[in-house]
């Protein structure tokens, strides 16, 4: 089997934390591969898997439009590349997103994940919280969910599997090769979610 290459989209947000969590996951799983921070089309086109990190979805979207990265990412995901979107990354992957307070925004989206997103769903920063999350469908029974001005999924299409809910709100989903969480596994010590993404990438390539 060839070495896998996972990229972390390095436009804006907590890129380093995802980079380190993915490196640690590969080494713990004993998988031979590389992790790189990506921004250009050339870098993105070489990937076997991509992580879209937390940050501001409006900024990640707008800046990905500037160099055309948005189209390259879409093309790669549609041809089967696994992707893991975290918080802003989840918003960016979605087909539809509305802000809880401001309502409709015309922010650029990848239009891949068949869900409707409510941005800032749990409130502002002061309402940000940590809580225990269970993701039984992917074998993670207990996970410390770090929710920072987090979105949630308000509607799901037919091909979308719900991985976790918190207080009736959907906070983790999977649609084929697309994994998305409203919370930030990269801010905690627990790398089990990054490990399951690395395994997904390995099984695909």
């Amino acid at each position, binding site marked *: 089997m060839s070495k896998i290459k996972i990229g972390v989209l*390095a*436009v*804006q*947000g*907590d*890129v*380093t*934390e995802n980079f*380190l*969590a993915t490196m640690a996951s590969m080494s713990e799983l004993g998988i031979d591969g590389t992790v790189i921070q990506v*921004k250009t089309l050339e870098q993105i086109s070489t990937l076997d898997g991509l992580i879209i990190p*937390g*940050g*501001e979805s*409006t*900024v990640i979207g*707008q*800046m990905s439009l*500037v*160099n055309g990265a948005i189209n390259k990412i879409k093309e790669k995901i549609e041809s089967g590349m696994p992707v893991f979107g975290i*918080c*802003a990354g989840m918003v960016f992957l979605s087909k539809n997103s509305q*802000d809880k*307070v*401001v309502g409709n*925004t015309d922010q650029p989206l990848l239009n891949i994940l068949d869900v409707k997103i409510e*941005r*800032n769903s749990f*409130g*502002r*920063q*002061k*309402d*940000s*919280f*940590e*809580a*225990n999350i269970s993701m039984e469908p992917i074998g993670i029974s207990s996970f410390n969910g*770090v929710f*920072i*001005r987090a979105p949630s999924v308000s509607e799901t299409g037919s091909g979308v599997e719900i991985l976790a809910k*918190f*207080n009736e709100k959907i906070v983790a989903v999977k649609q084929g090769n697309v994994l998305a969480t409203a919370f*930030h596994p*990269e*801010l*905690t*010590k627990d790398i089990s979610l990054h490990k399951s993404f690395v395994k997904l990438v390995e099984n695909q390539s």
Partner: protein
Amino acid sequence: MIPLSGDIPGAKGTICEKIDSNSIVRGTSTLKRGFAHMLKNGVVMDVTTVEQAQIAEEAGAVSVMVLDKLPSDVRKAGGVARTASIRIIEEIMDHVTIPVMAKCRIGHMYEAKVLDETNVDMIDESEVLTPADEYHHIWKWDYTTPFVNGARSLAEALRRIEEGAAMIRTKGEPGTGNVAEAIYHIKKVNEELRAIKSIYDSDDKQDLVRMAREFKVSYDLVEETAKIGRLPVVNFAAGGIATPADAAYLMSLGCDGIFVGSGIFKAEDAQERARAVVLATTFWEEPDKVKDAQKMIDERQSLLGLDVKNLELKMQDRGSTV
């Protein structure tokens, strides 16, 4: 995971609650510092109105900072500069989806409490406003809302972190359009970090103790910082940034992002300039893109700027020295 050096578990600002049958916790260092991590590689823009906040958001700002007056106007107006009108802050919070920050005076516990109650996303305890307490900074562990503080040296940065700051901005000289002080301070902090890292690497505990005494902070915080060789919280550059090239230069010095004060909305081409500064910050490693960004602005429309050597008021010196 992110560094939690200096964390005080069970601080007053950390709140445990039950929602239905779920236990949750708010205001932890992971949440406060984590919020700042989400801003990385972004531009925080000073704004005074809803219209400016919307221009900032459309340009790709990662957050806006609400002030009553932009720093260069604070400088001109003189008098006492205080926290912005709450009504304007709330109006801005209702009109943009990105995080909204606001400034309080150094040491002014109740301006901070008012901003905490207003639900701003981050509070800047800032020397741009007139200090309310010349001897103390706010004990930021008492608040659920995260704080950002300015620093001119590693010692100042670590003292603010020890008081609970979740983010640092290395200071420049606000409202001058002159980036020289921002560059000086980030280079100074970088040098000091390299120095303590090398002490750590040579396993000289006695010298680390000496540094902790000199910095007037706890040994543990110095040791943990020396070990990772960078500030344990996100660090942005601030003060005097006026052009895309200024922004790109500061990013190249290792800043996690930048704050732009008067540089955008005191320029005559604010809308274009806001966009250009964001582009240069995002693509600072690609000089051709920085050039394209710089081309979007007209130097004749930049904030005229001030020579930092002949200032009547040096904002960066304000507030307690310990």
